[in-house]
């Protein structure tokens, strides 16, 4: 299994799928995160291996009034 961690949430997917497929399976919009494995950034076509822990870094920030 592969574990994906986004803030305080954890997801598990089967090994062998690409990062893009894993994100879709977890209903995470790929555009809104950057994925790292062992501290290295990985791209959507990366195959995830059994035992991988993928840390997802949220990229959205904001909060000021819209004007």
């Amino acid at each position, binding site marked *: 299994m592969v574990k994906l961690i986004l803030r305080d949430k954890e997801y598990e997917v089967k090994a062998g799928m690409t990062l893009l497929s894993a994100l879709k399976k977890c209903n995470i919009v790929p555009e809104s995160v*950057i994925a790292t494995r062992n501290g290295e950034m990985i791209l959507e076509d990366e195959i995830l291996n059994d035992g991988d822990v993928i840390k997802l870094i949220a990229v959205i920030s904001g909060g*000021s009034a819209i004007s």
Partner: protein
Amino acid sequence: MKCKKCGAKASVNMRQHKLALCKEHYLEWVPEQTERFIKKYGMFTHEEKVLVAVSGGKDSLALWDILHRLGYQADGLYLGLGIDEGVAYSQESQRLAQKFADEHGLVLHVVDIEKEYGQPIPVLSEISHRGHDKPCAVCGLVKRHEMNRIARDLGYAVLATGHNLDDEAAVLFGNTLNWSSEYLLRQGPILPSTEGLARKVKPLCRFYEREMTAYCLLRGIEYIYEECPFAEGSTSIYYKELLNQLENARPGAKLTFYLRFLEARQRGDLFVEQNEGQAHLHPCPRCGQPTSAPGLCSFCRMMEKTQQFDKVN
């Protein structure tokens, strides 16, 4: 995926540009592009002093880092907003801004709002009853006022903020949904200086938010990751999420949305051009900064209200 420049393993893929780059070439590409945007929009020159609004977040620290690497005279300004909410948010963001400045030998001006005006942002918001149960409106107002005041007082030619394309697209989306013609007329990479207002520029306005996160990670810049405690459920974040869904289905949609708007505005195609003549500004009799209606500006009205509250209590 391989780097388009050298064929090594790519670290960043920008689907909107059909461009994947390795760490080394990405860290070269970002400053090159920033320099291109600075020149294209006539933001500032190497001879001018730039004040960078630094929050401790990824975008403003990335901007400061890029300008420093490009050799610009860029000092930082940190506004202490006094946001705690049990997580010492302001304290931590100031620590990271100061850490970056110290590590790079840069000048950081720190202004504490509570020391200047007697109350932190959340209390100013409560007293003045501005916004809807959240201090974001007051925070925005105070930041705009103070950044401009300090840039003028300290003699900086230009004030630079770390707004990225996602910030700009979200604002544009909101203003388009509301057909806010006055705001649409003013939005852009550069707001020229006028009587009482310093020139404001957004050198990162054509980079996606994702690209700035990648830049900080690859450069090893430590930034405040946790969101402002008051930002949860904000309209701007909601719009960004919607736009990212669109981007996911149609790569380049956010960039096209923003760039086509700028082009239409430049050509005078927008309906708001008819209102341009009505957008007169008046100097505030107290602080001297321009305001849209005669009399005190919004900031001074709010401060007057908070001072009256202090006297009564």
